[in-house]
């Protein structure tokens, strides 16, 4: 499979604090990777390194855009919704439109084809009626859909989602996973999640991040693996079905 992003011996952090050490990690085309790990373990830092928001202290990050369709964006991004200022005066339409902006093209107005694209992607997510609403009027789930629209409108080759399942109801969470499965046919997906229980059921592989990174080529992690990788994740139990993560299941 074709490589999209390659991290080699990456060490990264903020100011005087090293958060991640010697990360080797490759994202391939058609991947659906769930990234799990404890809070403060460096999940968001790693995402920020891949996005180019923070520069690694050492090591290198290689992008492989050579074969990519020029009309497609390389990376699409859905940030944590909790960081959003819901009082900001901006409409759903403009938020989604921002997904089409590029550094080369200063946008002071949107073209007819841009607007059409916005309409299409809103329809795809079933939130067309919200187009002219202000983001302050939306529920958590609706806002996540809007951000998903913004992330995928430029048809990225790699979609990165940072905790998309926070502040949303169960129904949206299920919808989200179905949507992601569909999207995964045309783009690689890297999804950060704190909820180990649900994520493992949908993803193809798991990256466990806690200062260092352990990559599991399947979505099944055994108790032994967890112990040997020294991967201190919390297992969430759902009522009568304890430890969903650990159960072996056929595909």
């Amino acid at each position, binding site marked *: 499979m074709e490589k999209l992003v390659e991290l080699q011996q990456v060490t990264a952090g*903020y100011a005087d604090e090293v958060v991640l050490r010697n990360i080797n990690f490759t994202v391939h085309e058609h991947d659906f990777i769930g990234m799990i790990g404890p809070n403060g373990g460096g999940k968001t830092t790693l995402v920020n390194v891949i996005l180019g928001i923070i520069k690694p202290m050492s090591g290198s990050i290689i992008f492989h855009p050579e074969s990519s369709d020029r009309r497609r964006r390389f990376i699409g991004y859905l*940030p944590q919704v909790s960081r959003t200022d819901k009082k900001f005066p901006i*409409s759903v339409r403009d938020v989604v439109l*921002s*997904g089409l*902006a590029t*550094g080369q093209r200063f946008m002071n107005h949107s073209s007819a084809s841009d607007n059409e694209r916005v309409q299409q992607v809103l329809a795809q997510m079933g939130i067309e009626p919200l187009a002219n609403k202000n983001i302050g009027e939306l529920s958590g789930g609706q806002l996540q859909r809007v951000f998903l629209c913004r992330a995928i409108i430029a048809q990225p080759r790699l979609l990165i989602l940072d905790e998309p399942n926070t502040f949303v109801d169960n129904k949206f969470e299920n919808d989200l996973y179905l949507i992601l499965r569909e999207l995964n046919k045309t783009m690689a997906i890297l999804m950060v999640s704190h909820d180990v229980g649900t994520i493992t059921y949908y993803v193809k592989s798991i990256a466990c991040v806690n200062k260092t990174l352990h990559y599991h080529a399947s979505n099944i992690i055994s108790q032994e693996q967890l112990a040997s990788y020294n991967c201190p994740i919390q297992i969430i139990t759902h009522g009568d079905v304890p430890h969903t993560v650990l159960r072996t299941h056929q595909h």
Partner: protein
Amino acid sequence: METFLELFDLLFFRNALLAALLASVSCGIIGTSIVSRRMVFISGGITHASFGGIGIGYFFGFSPIVGAIFFGVLSALGIEYMSKKTEVREDSVIAILWSLGMATGIIFVFLTPGYSANLMSYLFGNILTVSQLNLRLLLALSLLVIVVFSLFFKTILFVAFDENFARAIRLPVDAINYLLITLVALTIVLNIRVAGIILVLSLLTIPQTIANLFTHNFKTMIFLSILTGMIGSFAGLLLSWFFDIPSGATIIFFLVLIYLLARIVLQIRISLKIKRQINTEHETPKTIL
């Protein structure tokens, strides 16, 4: 009525009116960015830091406005640069620059021989003594702000709304931020003549807060803020003339009055709407299932 019309024959009054209208344009646009991005405290810091420049200008005998521009823009760029470093607390840095500027200004004003009555106009503003130079600078600023916002409106909006996302899609976030904070500093400093250091921030926030009551659209908010600012400063100017009270303070007093009225009107409209909804539910209970 005659005296009212005669007022417009007076050159200084016409200048004051022009200054007020130009102030409304730059403050309307830049203030919308400040309020939307929650940069009011940063703007307060820049405002007070610029007093250092005014004091130095007085002492060395050059135009205090030039000193203020220098101090204001430098402290703005400093704050923007510091805020990128995660190890410093942004609000503390702002507080330090805020008081450092004031302290520098006070010391240099103290060292300047003779009491300067004119100094009061920098603290409290005096739009009636606005100079030709200041008017030209205000005009240039308004044009600059209009040009920048027409050229990069969407990019400015996207960066303001979600900086992280803007960085991820490689928008020129740093360039936009430095450009904007410079415009914020220039807008504040050049409008000090209108409302004074102590009151200028209200020209950048009250019209926006009023506009925000009626719209949640960035662009509409800009236009409504400009309009509110113009009404407020025009009415305030007239009132200050007739009652012979300080112009800057009167303008702001009038703007706050508009805000309170707008709130009351809005509140009445909301309660009427709710009442109507309850009434219609009573009349046609069967349609609501």
